[in-house]
């Protein structure tokens, strides 16, 4: 994302410089009103008082953030203790997203490397094959996963038929099912940036390492991996960030016990039982986490680019 902003500067010309503001006006207006203003309004709502039938009362309050972090007992007058419920949900989300990222890396890295070392003519076909599933509706992919993983689903059927297991493996409604779902949802995001990085890598460096008696795995770890690190980091971010705030995989595959941030937020806006300021506050906390991650990576990538010259 940050790299796009940086590289966008290279090919500019000024043919339409005089009409620039008029050309940009529609995007400023639409995105300003329907994306930027809503995010700011959400920030304001997180500091308002909740209304019991959903919605807010326009009175400043820190109650939403207070409820997130502190437990003050049933009547709100006990001494404040740390409230673990929501921190646990956030922690679980980080853990689940992390596990999905590691799974994607384990499968995605070798795949990306393999594709990038194919003949130049066939590479686009491989890349195309990897991207198709990404463009299939996320809901449908998650439903397919649910269908496949059920106790009486095709996967268990298959494993029992070939005699690998005697009774169905219970996967659905576990943390592992959510991790699998997230892994499946965002795997192409891991493959593509790593692929791009390996494609740019100069393999004469591997050859030089081989000439100096490095084994192939040492070469991979000490030469290839450092050179393509920006691609690997980009892939990890592209899997981790959407996993963190995902709603469909935990909701459809995880069941009620494996709640993640997305479901916590969604619940606050459903029907009349919700708490809008609390939902807005939880969204703000999630948004801040994501923006911090993106900023740190953008800074590191910029540093790495500078170091390369």
């Amino acid at each position, binding site marked *: *994302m940050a790299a796009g*902003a940086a590289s*966008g500067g290279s*090919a*500019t*010309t*000024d*043919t*339409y*410089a005089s009409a*620039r503001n008029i*050309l*940009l006006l*529609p*995007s400023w207006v*639409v*995105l*300003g009103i*329907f*994306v*930027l203003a809503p*995010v700011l*309004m*959400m920030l304001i*709502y997180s500091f308002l008082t909740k209304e019991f039938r959903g*919605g807010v009362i326009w009175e400043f309050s820190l109650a939403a953030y207070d409820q997130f972090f502190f437990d003050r007992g049933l009547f709100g007058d006990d001494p404040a203790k740390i409230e673990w419920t929501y921190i646990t949900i956030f922690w679980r989300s980080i853990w689940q997203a992390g596990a999905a990222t590691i799974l994607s890396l384990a*499968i995605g890295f*070798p*795949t990306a490397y*393999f*594709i990038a070392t194919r003949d130049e003519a066939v590479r*686009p076909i491989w890349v195309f*094959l*990897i991207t*198709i599933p990404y*463009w*299939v*509706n996320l*809901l*449908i*992919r998650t*439903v*397919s996963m*649910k*269908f*496949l993983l059920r106790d009486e*689903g*095709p996967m268990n059927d298959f494993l029992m038929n070939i005699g690998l297991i005697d009774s169905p493996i219970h996967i659905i409604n576990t943390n592992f099912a959510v991790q699998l779902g997230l892994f*499946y949802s965002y*795997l192409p995001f891991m493959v593509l940036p790593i692929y791009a990085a390996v494609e740019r890598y100069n*393999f004469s460096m*591997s050859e030089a390492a081989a000439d100096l008696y490095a084994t*192939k795995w040492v070469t991979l770890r000490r030469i290839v991996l450092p050179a393509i690190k920006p691609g690997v980091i980009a892939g990890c971010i592209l899997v981790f960030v*959407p996993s963190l*705030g995902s709603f*469909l995989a935990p909701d459809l595959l995880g069941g009620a016990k494996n709640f993640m941030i997305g479901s916590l937020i969604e619940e606050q*806006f459903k029907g009349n039982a919700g708490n809008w300021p609390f939902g807005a506050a939880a*969204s703000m906390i*999630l948004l801040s986490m*994501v923006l911090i991650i993106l900023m740190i990576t953008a800074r590191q990538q910029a540093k790495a680019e500078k170091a390369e010259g």
Partner: protein
Amino acid sequence: MAIVNDSIKSYKGFKAITILCLVVLYAPLVIVTIYSFNASKSITNWEGLSLYWYWDIFAGPESAKWKEAAWNSFTIAIVAVTTAMSIATLAATAMVRGGKFKLRTASFGLISLPLMVPEIVLAVATLIFFNSIGFTRGYFSILVAHTAFCIPFAYLPIQARMQGIEDSYEQAAMDLYANKRQAFTKILLPLMMPGIISGFLLAFIVSLDDFIITNFVKGAGVETLPTAIFGSVKQGLKPNIMAISTLLLGVSVIMVTISYFVSKKDNTQ
């Protein structure tokens, strides 16, 4: 680059993992497609080939619901993406052909904002915003939200394409007394077409597929295909879901394939 011996490049097991990767990506989709042709009323047992569930979607008791959802999904996608496309094309022209200017980085940040904000957060923010300005939730609120978040998806392929077109064509036209508007509509726009078409198709899929934001801003009674499918899945997996999923899956695959060939043809010219 020097030609490097293949044995240095390749690692044992990477090919097997790549094949595993493709199997993992495609198996669930293939299995759902197969089961959509199942004659059985249960999703577990296989009772032979049948088109019954496709009939069920188009003519069964719930067919009115699916038709309305499909109508909403497709009309919203067409209108939202066409609007987003026009906005994105103008913006890309300013960003790529507008010289250096102060608000360039800020403009790029604003355009890519919908990609950086987690979808659930954007959904909450949009709901809150519509609520605070008293915008009734329904068909029109979905349309507006879709237009906004489709802009970056339309913008990125257009920008990439425009950066690949040298401005000497437009300069030549203007040397021959074409004005800027003519240079834009007669020269730049036709050259941009492959990028615009592939951007349109991809943004169209993004709009057609959106569940989370739509679910927040749709209000009661208005459903798109994803929200209708989600509602149905929540009541239990039924075989008709397999059929409708297969149809939507087919639409996505066809559109991505067209987009792939449009941009590929473009590279060979």
